[in-house]
């Protein structure tokens, strides 16, 4: 049996699959299914660069969601937090979107020709500097079966608990300070909220990056993990979970490619084991 329902949904399926053999859910002798849910710690600062308003109109769009990318560079020194983050930089004369001029309207207010001029002048002059960090799982972030709510098919749904750790907060603060410095050094002015945990360092929302992984984690020890290194359940040899649920930590880069690689690896292993009649 191979499950790839996505993180959380795979956990939900297993937790709802109770039997006399598995009273707390299929393959859940460790009691860890649903535990160690993760997202991506993040922060972002928007910079205003008046110089950009002088660039003649041009086609700014490459492929979708294009951005400059800076991998983690402080891996060789002592930091205030563990692990690291990468930077994504984008902006300029991008495709107009709903909300694009709310900031201009809030800053300059007014109406009429002056407002219209401001929108034109400001269009293309904002650069976003965004950080995406690694999340180390913590005890306070998990999902479990909701005891009172079912979906439209009558199947119990999940309820969620989530908390950032001190490590996540320190990382977001570091991003925030760094991005402010980058924007200023490049001749711009930070125009978004910066600098405090109350303002979530710009973008530290639970589930805000929507890279949800974990909840059926892999590991060498059946007491502290659900799956082995090949996404195979410790408890049930012919059960594989091949989505983001198996992540033991959430690396800073978007999880999709890692999910595909792990799934590929699990498939090779599955085929090999099946040929040997081990499943």
């Amino acid at each position, binding site marked *: 049996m191979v499950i790839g329902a996505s993180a959380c949904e795979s956990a939900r399926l297993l937790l709802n699959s109770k039997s006399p053999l598995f009273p707390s859910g299929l393959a859940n002798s460790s009691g860890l299914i649903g535990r160690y849910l993760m997202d991506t710690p993040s922060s972002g600062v928007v910079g205003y660069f008046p110089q950009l308003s002088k660039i003649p109109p*041009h086609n700014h769009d490459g492929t979708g969601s294009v951005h400059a990318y800076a991998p983690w560079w402080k891996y060789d020194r002592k930091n205030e937090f563990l692990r690291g983050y990468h930077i994504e930089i984008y902006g300029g004369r991008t495709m*107009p979107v*709903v*909300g694009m001029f*709310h900031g201009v*309207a809030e800053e300059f*207010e007014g109406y*009429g020709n002056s407002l219209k001029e401001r929108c*034109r002048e400001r*269009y293309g002059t904002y650069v976003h500097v965004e950080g995406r960090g690694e999340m180390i799982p913590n005890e306070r972030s998990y999902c479990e079966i909701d005891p009172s709510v079912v979906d439209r098919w009558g199947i119990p749904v999940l309820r969620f608990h989530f908390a950032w750790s001190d490590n996540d907060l320190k990382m977001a603060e570091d991003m925030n300070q760094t991005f402010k410095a980058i924007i200023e050094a490049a001749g711009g002015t930070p125009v978004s909220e910066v600098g405090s945990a109350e303002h979530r360092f710009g973008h530290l929302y639970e589930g805000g990056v929507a890279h949800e992984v974990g909840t059926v984690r892999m590991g060498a020890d059946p007491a502290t993990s659900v799956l082995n290194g090949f996404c195979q359940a410790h408890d049930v040899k012919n059960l594989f979970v091949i989505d983001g649920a198996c992540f033991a930590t959430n690396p800073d880069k978007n999880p999709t490619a890692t999910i595909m690689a792990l799934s590929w690896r699990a498939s090779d292993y599955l085929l090999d084991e099946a040929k040997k009649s081990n499943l």
Partner: protein
Amino acid sequence: MANTVSRRDVLKSLALSGASSSALRLIPLQRAVRVHEMLQRDKAAASAGGAYTPRFFTSHQYKTLQALCQAIIPPDDRSAGAIEAGVPEFIDLLTSENKDYQLQLGGGLMWLDATCADLYGKNYLDCTAAEQKQILDLLAYRENVRKNSGLSQGIRFFALLRDLTTDGFYTSEIGIKDLHYLGNTFVAEFPGCPPVPEG
């Protein structure tokens, strides 16, 4: 994929975006464009007269809405104004699916007429151009609340309407051209950005 999304889903997602945090409220142009397209189809399907029938606003409220949108983004030598870009229809359509907007915009228009009645003895549309400018100058700036706390609801209403007007205008064909947005099209060669001019 986009074609499987229902009309109601599109409107709901746009209306939701206004309520969420600033970091998350940017909504792709494609969805706003779909709202404009829906309106175009509605117009084409309308009777020979082709007049737009507001979904939410009364006829009087809608005329007031048109006047306010046009005041917020008027025509100039580069592009037409909010009415030509279909902004009042855009706002009416979104409002018809959003209870918060119904309260804030519907109530805001009533507030405006009541305030104009107090000040000038007539509703907004019957005011002279000078009177209209006078009231809009009061509503367009947050700091005016310090001089007159009775303006706070009107200022909030106007700020929302200004946001929605920029949304509707700059996601319309007229607005996109006004910005000289040149992307989202096939190019045989991608030369990238020209240099920043000196000085």
